[in-house]
């Protein structure tokens, strides 16, 4: 089915190409996938999610949110997400795991959570991480969209300096890209799982990032994450470290998964995909598909757990 169009999943693509491919997936699987506009970016680019649903019309089905590309330079995350979109659609009805997940739940996949940043990395500065919003009174542009959520906003592990790579923004949800996702998820009201895909250093983390305090569900999340990491490693031996964000990578307030968890979405995880650091954020394109394939095994393990443990 992948030869039916000319999108090369083993290459990096422009925003337009990714959006076209989302449209094409929706066209190829009209009974399952739809491209939904959930908002727009600061520079007024559309934000699209692919909604995978087998229950037309039932709006508040339990749902899973897959988020990628919030840090624009982490290109392997957007590339993995678009591969995953095609994988979900093409495996439905063939792979019992994804079939049974989709019979019970909807999946929403946002491959490019920071479209302005992504375009900027392709046209101006490959290493750009933040949004492209203007900060009045500062020559520096953008806020870190993964410090901008309303979860201990402006706490530890975020900067109040607009020139910093981890600037939290003037207030929670100040970044329209973040607000668009927040509004959509809140309006929907029945998300059970939120997974954010980043890249660099192979980690699988769960709340909290803003405190060393143990999350109430930490034991269960840890067990699920360890199983997911084992499944991921089973493909080509990529080793992931597992643990809470704060102690596994570093303290970070205002993050997406902490917001999700604090707003009742229990199954909240962050992946840091394959990258030893020796490539920076420039993971060679020939590693896109291997990365996506191994990540899929981890994602599927988590989604199966969510399916079997709806609350």
């Amino acid at each position, binding site marked *: 089915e992948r030869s039916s169009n000319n999108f090369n999943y083993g290459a990096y693509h422009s925003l337009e190409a990714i959006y076209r491919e989302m449209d094409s997936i929706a066209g190829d699987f009209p009974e399952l996938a739809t491209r939904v506009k959930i908002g727009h970016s600061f520079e007024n680019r559309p934000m699209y999610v692919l909604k995978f649903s087998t229950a037309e019309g039932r709006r508040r089905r339990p749902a899973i949110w897959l988020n990628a590309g919030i840090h624009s330079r982490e290109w392997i995350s957007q590339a993995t997400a678009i591969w995953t979109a095609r994988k979900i659609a093409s495996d439905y009805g063939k792979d019992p795991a994804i079939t049974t997940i989709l019979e019970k739940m909807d999946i929403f996949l946002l491959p490019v959570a920071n479209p302005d940043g992504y375009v900027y990395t392709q046209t101006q*500065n490959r*290493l750009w991480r933040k949004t492209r919003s203007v900060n009045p009174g500062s020559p520096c542009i953008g806020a870190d969209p993964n410090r901008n959520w309303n979860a201990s906003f402006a706490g530890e592990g975020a900067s109040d300096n607009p020139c910093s790579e981890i600037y939290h923004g003037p207030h929670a949800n100040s970044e329209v890209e973040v607000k668009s996702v927040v509004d959509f998820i809140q309006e929907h009201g029945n998300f059970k799982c939120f997974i954010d895909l980043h890249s660099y*250093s192979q980690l699988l983390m769960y709340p909290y990032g803003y405190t060393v305090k143990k999350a109430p569900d930490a034991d269960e999340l840890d067990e699920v994450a360890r199983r997911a990491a084992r499944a991921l490693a089973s493909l080509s031996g990529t080793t992931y470290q597992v643990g809470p964000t704060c102690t596994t990578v570093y303290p970070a307030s205002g993050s997406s998964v902490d917001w999700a968890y604090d707003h009742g979405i229990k199954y909240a995880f962050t992946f840091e995909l394959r990258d030893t*650091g*020796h490539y920076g954020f420039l993971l060679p394109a020939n590693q896109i598909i291997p990365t996506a394939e191994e990540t899929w095994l981890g994602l599927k393990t988590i989604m199966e757990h969510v399916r079997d443990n709806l609350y």
Partner: protein
Amino acid sequence: REKFFGDQVFRINVRNGDEISKLSQLVNSDNLKLNVWKSPSTFSRPVDVLVPSVSLQPVKSFLKSQGLEYSVTIKDLQALLDNEDEEMQHNEGQ
């Protein structure tokens, strides 16, 4: 397009809280324009920092003077970017 000629990425190993605080002092310095890819957190995890070419000497001197261990993981960032760009153009052609 912004270029990164001569910029390097340093991987710095921290062994104790004192070294973490010394390193934090370095990365928080505005005039060196460092871009922290992996922040100082625990002792077991190295820190990756993008150092612009103009800051290479002062950063190296600081690390040496403070006895901080480091290695250069990316010697020429622009070369990596150029390769990536070439690969993208090749893929587009295909």
